[in-house]
């Protein structure tokens, strides 16, 4: 899988490059600002771009803006935002077009290397990877979730993060069959169309959670 990295701190940029190379990714470019990111993505057409939010020159929300540009101009490239902080405002802007191939994670999550690598791969394949903090804020905003049982809420949360049934089963120590049953029940209770494809289902759930 081909990756472009945009991160202004050399220490983190090099660390991330090494980590991804060790895990079998091909890092085709590692740049330090938003403009360079857009240029190299349009040139290299990677599967996924990993983007920090705060980039030169203003160190504000360049990463988010560059990501939105990429969504528009290189729709096949997945965008994974990594940042020191999670802001719901950014999450809403990024999710607004309702398409997959998108992630927003705290940089802390990079420490769980296996999980992080799986997230990069998922975004590159058109899936989603949302930080548990984003999901928690989405869940807290959306009130009528009382119809779900505690277990179903747990499953819904993991689903919203973008995880597959198998991953959810692994996380909750359940069988895949049991997870599938919970998922079917959640979709039925929230009146969402059943779908066998993980990515599409996740997008439906996110759309549901965002319409507050």
């Amino acid at each position, binding site marked *: 899988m081909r990756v472009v990295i945009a991160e202004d701190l050399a220490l983190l940029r090099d660390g991330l490059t090494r980590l991804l190379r060790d895990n079998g990714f091909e890092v085709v470019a590692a740049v330090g600002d938003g403009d360079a990111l857009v240029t190299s993505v349009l040139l290299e057409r990677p599967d996924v771009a990993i983007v920090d939010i*705060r980039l030169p020159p203003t160190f504000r929300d360049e990463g988010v803006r560059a990501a939105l540009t990429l969504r528009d101009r290189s729709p096949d490239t997945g965008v994974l935002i990594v940042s020191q902080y999670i802001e719901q405002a950014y999450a809403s802007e990024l999710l607004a077009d309702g398409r997959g191939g998108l992630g927003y994670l705290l940089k*802390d999550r990079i420490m769980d290397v296996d999980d992080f690598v799986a997230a990069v791969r998922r975004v590159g394949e058109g899936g989603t990877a949302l930080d548990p903090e984003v999901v928690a804020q989405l869940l807290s*905003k959306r009130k009528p979730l009382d119809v779900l049982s505690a277990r179903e809420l747990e499953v819904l949360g993991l689903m919203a993060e973008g995880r597959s049934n198998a991953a959810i089963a692994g996380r909750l120590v359940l069988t895949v069959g049991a997870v599938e049953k919970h998922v079917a029940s959640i979709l039925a209770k929230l009146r969402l169309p059943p779908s066998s494809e993980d990515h599409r289902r996740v997008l439906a759930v996110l759309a549901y959670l965002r319409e507050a």
Partner: protein
Amino acid sequence: MRAARTLLFLLASVPLAALALAVLLTGWIVTSVLAITPLGVPALVGFRAGVGGVAWLDAELANRLLGTSASPTLRSPGPSGFWNSGLNVLRDPAFWRQQAYLLASLPLGFGGAVAAWSLLAASLGSLTLPVWYRWNAPELGSWDVDTLGRALLGVPVGILGLVILFGLLRLLDAMTRRVVTGALDGREGVAGPSRSERRRSLAVHAVATVAINLFLIVIWAVTSRGYFWPEWTLIALGLPLAIHAWVVLVEEHPEIARRQRISSGLATREGIALSFSIFFVLVWAVTGGGYFWPLWPILLFAVGFAIRIVSEYSRRGERISELETTRAGAVEQQESELERIERDLHDGAQARLVALGMSLGMAEQKLATDPVAAQELLAEARQGTREALEELRSLARGIHPPVLTDRGLAAAIEALATRTPVEVDVSVKLPQRPPRAVETAAYFVAAEGLANAGKHANAGHVDIGVRADGGNLVVEVVDDGSGGADPAGNGLRGLAQRVEALDGTLAVDSPVGGPTTIRAVMPCEW
């Protein structure tokens, strides 16, 4: 039909324009005579309403006949108070625009009406020439229209005249509609007039003044040519133009007042007094000199100026001591804030990093001998890193939340609300983003209010409102908790110092049993 309406409008606007000129002249003369007494202020406010009223009549006529939808204002917005109500009028671009419109409508409306109605009469006469030439054969130079053949030539001329008339009416219609909408519609945004709007109203006013004076001078020139009576309108209309220009100048260039070491309010007033003085001297001059009576109003102005200077200096003394207090408060608040950050770093992230280093060191030792224990230590180290990051993040947010800079108050307060377990209603209604310092202070008022509601008051619901109120930004946090918040407590005192450093006030109303209202009002230039 449309053309008939335009013709009617033109006809009706002539007496209206004459009325407008009468109102403007008497208004300014009465106001200027009263200006040497405090009665000048109510006179000016009344005059403003009079101008608005005539403008309203004009707009109403245009709305009915031409289909515009202008609604001129009758009052000038701005801070309340006796002197302010006068200054508000002078600072109001709508007032000046209305005057400019009324001034300009006399020559323009008059010219348009004369042109259109004479063209109509001439065209109709020409068109019906074959009918009436028998009784009253007109002569065109040496050419008598006394046969039917010749009279029939009048028909195409009449038709041509009507075509031109329709074109002219269309043009006048479009022009009037634009001018009425542009000059008389008074709907200004909450933000008040902008720089360019102020300048535009001054330019329009100047052009209108010049136009009407030229018009009257032309009338004087083609009629009697005796006594130069337009000098009266020159003086009477020059006075408001001078005042208007001065008000705009002081507003746009505050450095003029600063260089004289006086406030801009005082500079405005003194400029107006000077304009009136010149006005009186000119009146004295055109009435043939004699006893120099303008001495008395000028003397009165000078005394008023002296009194105001003295009071301004004494007020300035009070202001200096107030600034000294708030500056000391701001410095103290900054100090204690830095101290808190240092303590948080020392006890939190730094300590965690030390522990992390120890875990890693031990893991390195055990790697060869006891890989299982090493693995455990590494997992511990990773957990420690995560906690350190968590702490640093909340510390950074407490210093300055990034989303505030990027997305403004509404997004930042919403983000605060989602992180609080309490139910929060947020309403941010601002015409535009306030200056950074005010924005940050407003954010921390909301943050501190929320923290209080959650921590001490056991509140279940909090309302946070941010709005613009005149030249102020108001933040209000109301919770339904148990009350009893101590304004002298650490958090609220620091907050008060922060707000006071921006010339604002923080009021905490928290009776035991609740509810608690925290309200910050900060001056804010929009």
